[in-house]
């Protein structure tokens, strides 16, 4: 399942890919599927080679392709947890926040079937993940790209998942939304300025859910 910054592009009508210029392609691998994925890597990724320093990253042999970054998904883990699923060939850095992500539709692009996550879970994963600097800002702008294309049903799903989160994580989501609302435009990413009212509305909506804006 694709879980990174390419998702807003893939979820656009016709996978138009106008929202985000990705630096890499994050592929989420449920740890329960690790053996099956590993077994098909060499056969499927002939145009890539694993990085010797970090074998979860596969670098392209030709310049026109994005680097592929495999990350682990373990639904049993807490969203704040992180651990390494160790393996000689395909070790995975398992981010607990990815446990918020659930599988969505399978779309077809150029004859390749791609599984994308449900929007709501990825929005919350991006908003609860605590990264800093450029990577952190890019994550928040990916969340914005997902919000920009979200429908009422997606927002209701966000509400439901948010309500199940513990207070510290809900605060992290709201805190990151405030950071997102004040971000400067960044080349190759959605411009947050025209969407500030939408972000403010999302904040108020979440605050109403827990009745605690603190």
């Amino acid at each position, binding site marked *: 399942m694709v879980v990174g910054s390419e998702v807003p592009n893939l979820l656009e009508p016709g996978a138009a890919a106008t929202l985000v210029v990705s630096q890499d392609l994050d592929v989420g691998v449920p740890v329960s599927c690790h053996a099956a994925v590993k077994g098909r890597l060499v056969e499927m990724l002939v145009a890539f080679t694993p990085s010797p320093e970090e074998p979860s990253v596969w670098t392209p042999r030709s310049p026109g392709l994005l680097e592929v970054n495999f990350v682990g998904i373990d639904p049993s883990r807490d969203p*704040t947890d992180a651990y390494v699923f160790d393996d000689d060939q395909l070790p995975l850095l398992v981010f607990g926040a990815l446990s918020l992500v659930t599988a969505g539709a399978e779309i077809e692009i150029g004859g390749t079937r791609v599984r994308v996550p449900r929007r709501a879970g990825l929005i919350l994963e991006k908003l609860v993940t605590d990264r800093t600097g450029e990577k952190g800002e890019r994550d928040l702008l990916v969340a914005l790209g997902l919000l920009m294309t979200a429908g009422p049903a997606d927002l209701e799903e966000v509400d439901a998942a948010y309500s199940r989160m513990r207070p510290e994580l809900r605060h992290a989501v709201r805190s990151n939304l405030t950071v997102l609302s004040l971000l*400067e435009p960044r080349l190759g990413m959605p411009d947050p300025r025209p969407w500030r009212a939408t972000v403010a509305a999302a904040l108020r909506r979440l605050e109403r859910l827990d009745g605690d804006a603190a």
Partner: protein
Amino acid sequence: MTPALERRVREQRARVLVRSWDYRQRHHARGVWFRLRRVLAEASAAFVVAPEDAAALVAEGCRADPVGEALEPRKLIVFAAAERVARIGSARAVPLRLGRDVLEARHLVLTPFDPAP
């Protein structure tokens, strides 16, 4: 485990620890940054104004947000309608971000978003 993955896990856990501390401090001094961002998030634009103009807005009943009192030096942060701000001669628009203009301002006027149609 490769050193790179080990380092990334360590960094991730450290960030979570810092964030947990931030959360526990949210009602204290550390939390003022979240509260300030939260207020700014509700603004469509920000203006630095002269002290007397800010005081006049408060006298007219415009809402002053308490987060300004939690900062040192204190700020007067007032919400006012864009039409009212347009009549303030001293009003100078500043970028809505936690940058120098907003942080240095002692009298800041914020305009709310238009209500959804």
